[in-house]
């Protein structure tokens, strides 16, 4: 409860404990209706057996005539290196990421 200089209770002022970043208003882009003509990337975050899942996915996509580019994070425990993120964004239209264990 705050009392201002005139003795009348006013709003309590507190300091923002956050980083004050505006809420991220970005939304996911629309899911493509088809993969025809799109550049598809497969991202392995280096969790065990993620490669098993992605290998099978690559096979299934190849049957549909879609070729893929493969990427891997150095370790799943840390954020993606910025260079790898740039590489993927310049080389792919669509990315499929494997989480596994």
């Amino acid at each position, binding site marked *: 409860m705050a009392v201002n200089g005139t003795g009348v209770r006013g709003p*309590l002022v507190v*300091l923002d*404990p956050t980083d004050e970043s505006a809420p991220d208003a970005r939304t996911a882009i629309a899911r493509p209706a088809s993969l025809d003509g799109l550049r598809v990337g497969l991202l392995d975050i280096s969790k065990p057996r993620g490669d098993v899942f992605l290998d099978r996915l690559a096979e299934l996509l190849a049957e549909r005539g879609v070729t893929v580019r493969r990427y891997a994070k150095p370790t799943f425990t840390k954020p993606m290196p910025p260079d790898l993120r740039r590489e993927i964004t310049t080389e792919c239209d669509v990315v499929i990421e494997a989480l596994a264990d």
Partner: protein
Amino acid sequence: MDLREDGLVAVVKRDCPTCRLVEPVLAGLSRTGELTVFTQDDPAFPDGVADLRDDTELSASLALDIETVPTLVRFAGGVEAGRVVGWSRAQWTELTGVADLGEGLPEHRPGCGSRTLDPDVAEQLLVRTRGGALRSRRLEISALEDEAEALFDRGFTDGLPVVAPTPARVLRMLEGTSHAPDEVVAVVPPNLAEATVEKVAVNAVLAGCRPEYLPVVLAAVEAACTDEFNAHGLLATTWGAGPAIVVNGPVRAEIGMNWAGNALGQGNRANSTIGRALQLVIRNVGGGRPREVDRAALGHPGKVGFCFAEDEEGSPFEPLAQSRGVPAGRSAVTVFAAEGPRGVADQISRRPESLARSLALGLRGVVHPKLVRGFDATLVVCPEHARVFAEAGWDRARLQAALDEYLLLDRAEITRGAGGVDEGVPAGDSDRPLAKFRPGGLLIVHAGGGAGMFSAVIGGWAGGPGGSAPVTREVDPWR
């Protein structure tokens, strides 16, 4: 404010009996034409003073750094040449050069506290004089809102109530460090937001810290936001560990930390709030919230905050911080990945080898009894167990070496499928025993009450460069 270049300045308040006592003295001095009186409460007091100034806003009192009224100050050439606090005939006579002051008054009488020091006023003055240094966005909680509820609603808490971070409280918190509020302490994951000293102070207020804890919190934030500690990975993993802090050095006693009975438990303000402040910085500044980037499947209660001090005085071991390179006599924090602690009882062993084997059995269960080298751990040796090592002349290195030896696990016992359990290490082409922990993956700390042969194992998380390694930082640079 218009202070005299030359002459006398008195600061008084009607509420003070000593000020009322010297009222006629001030009136007499006023007739010399060289006296200005600032009055803190009643602008009409004292009577008979020609140059009487209203200082109910206390600006002059602050500028003159008045702690007691009456205070009489002499200026010469715009510079303070002397001051007298309270009433003393001899001192007032010397300062004013006027003889026979205060006829009929006692020889001396102490003054009263200046209004600038009244608790309710002091808070407003603090914000008025120093609030401009604060950069954080100001949020208003309306008079119709409950303050505690409003802070929950805004998402600032860990699920427990927090202390409202008013500008006055944050300014008082900042008195705990000499560092500027806008200095960047660390870049906090997961959002990689810069945490300034001020933001850390705001969160320390939320957590319930006292200002003298702030250097410890700042050092912990610095340590936790290093690449080695990898707070991002520790937060994001589905494993349940969180950051814990062990404090070494003189600061432990200075701020009243607990390293004795119930050292890992509740009930000590410094232990409870320092760990909480670190977690609130990660939550609020870094944006690391449970069920968002914090993906823990289970977590544990110590994720609200986990901080304790090492018992150095009663320890047979070199303090943890010293074993990690901090010079003796200096204070430091070591942050490490921590699950909740689990007790290891051994009330029989009096031989160090036997006791070390017991503790090794307790450590073997970390992450899974059949898994090795992935996860780090911390062993908290209680005083009654430490006594066994002390009497045998075992130091930290000797115990560490024994544990390393006893934690070489027989591959046949831990291979997948062994013991009817499919989990375990993959079958290898060698039958050499496997070390439970990576080199440097086991911390040893001494803490606890004097009774009870119960040490504790604190499991960690994936250790080393691919996960999180313990990090030690000195506290003193943050004072």
